[in-house]
């Protein structure tokens, strides 16, 4: 599992790659917390993720809360039908904005104050 970060127009994008979800431990929380010192706009790109687990769901929901507290937001993009199904089961779809692509997500985040 690798995690790359990019900055596009003040939006921090996390590109997840790979399916070794056991690699997710507490590191992810630390990375997001560090990111929150620099930005209040985050995109989580799940394009290359086939699987997801409750830990990553927890990371996404707590990151969402962190960004909202900073008057920003978090958007998840490229979510497969299977992962959307899982999001629905745990009600994550009710609190997280999901868009089909990066451009749409950036356009939305640009409307928020930095």
């Amino acid at each position: 599992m690798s995690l790359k970060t990019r900055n596009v127009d003040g939006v921090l994008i996390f590109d997840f790659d790979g399916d070794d979800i056991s690699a997710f431990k507490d590191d992810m929380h630390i990375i997001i917390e560090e990111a929150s010192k620099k930005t209040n706009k985050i995109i989580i790109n799940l394009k290359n993720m086939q699987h997801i687990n409750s830990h990553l769901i927890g990371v996404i929901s707590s990151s969402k809360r962190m960004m909202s507290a900073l008057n920003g937001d978090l958007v998840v993009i490229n979510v497969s039908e299977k992962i959307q199904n899982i999001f629905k089961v745990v009600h994550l779809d009710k609190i997280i904005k999901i868009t089909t692509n990066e451009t749409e997500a950036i356009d939305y985040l640009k409307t928020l104050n930095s």
Partner: protein
Amino acid sequence: MASRVIGKILVIDDDESILRLLSKFLTSEGHTVVTENNGSNAIDKFKENHFDLVITDMYMPELDGLDIIRNIKDINCNIPIIVLTAAGSITNVVQSLKLGAFNYMTKPVNIGEVREIIQKAFLANAAIRQQKNFCTYLSTSISTFRTNSDITRLDEISYFINHMLGFFGYSSTWQIQLAFTEAFTNAVCHGNMSAPDKFVNVEIKFLKDEIIITIEDEGEGFKVPDLKNYRLSDDIYAGSGRGIFLINSYMDSISFNEKGNRITMSKKRE
């Protein structure tokens, strides 16, 4: 000349000239061909019809080749998928193979290569069908694992489960994989608190139409929730309970021993 295997093929590409070329050639080879220039429509067609093979372009607007592979493999993990890509696009080829594509072909399409790769894909599929035949008289398999609290064992055992589910003719396995991931992670990280001197015992029973998984850790256990009325906290941000909730949602049955350090879960084949 060796006899050729024929089948029903779904071809996905936003370039109509490629669709026409492949449709004409594959039909002349005796295959039944369905073409689609839109990824979402293609997935709908795949859900509604039986196909033996899928050929998909890599670069398309909206859903691209990787999205197509992910979605189709979720519906039928045994279907062979061949990816069409521009010469030199190795990164996405590697990614597509990781996602379970059978092989790839570069554009411009070489008809001889198309024939050869399709035949290889059909032969591979025939091997899977033989495997399914094998499972008509394979009635039960019980496997046990004992491992220390090493989370990296998760992928190894998951791979084994996936492989065995293939033997037993399961086409969609992700719900079982997800439940196993949650329960094993819980045993290692929360039950045993990742202590290296504590072990996790896993027993997996593959029955004719059902899989039963038991995972026991050496931790203190926990207060077993009322699973019949189990629901997530009203606080969506609450950090705990999602793992058990997911297992409860995707498996047919789930139970714990009194101490709360052993979970047994089962799912019948759909």
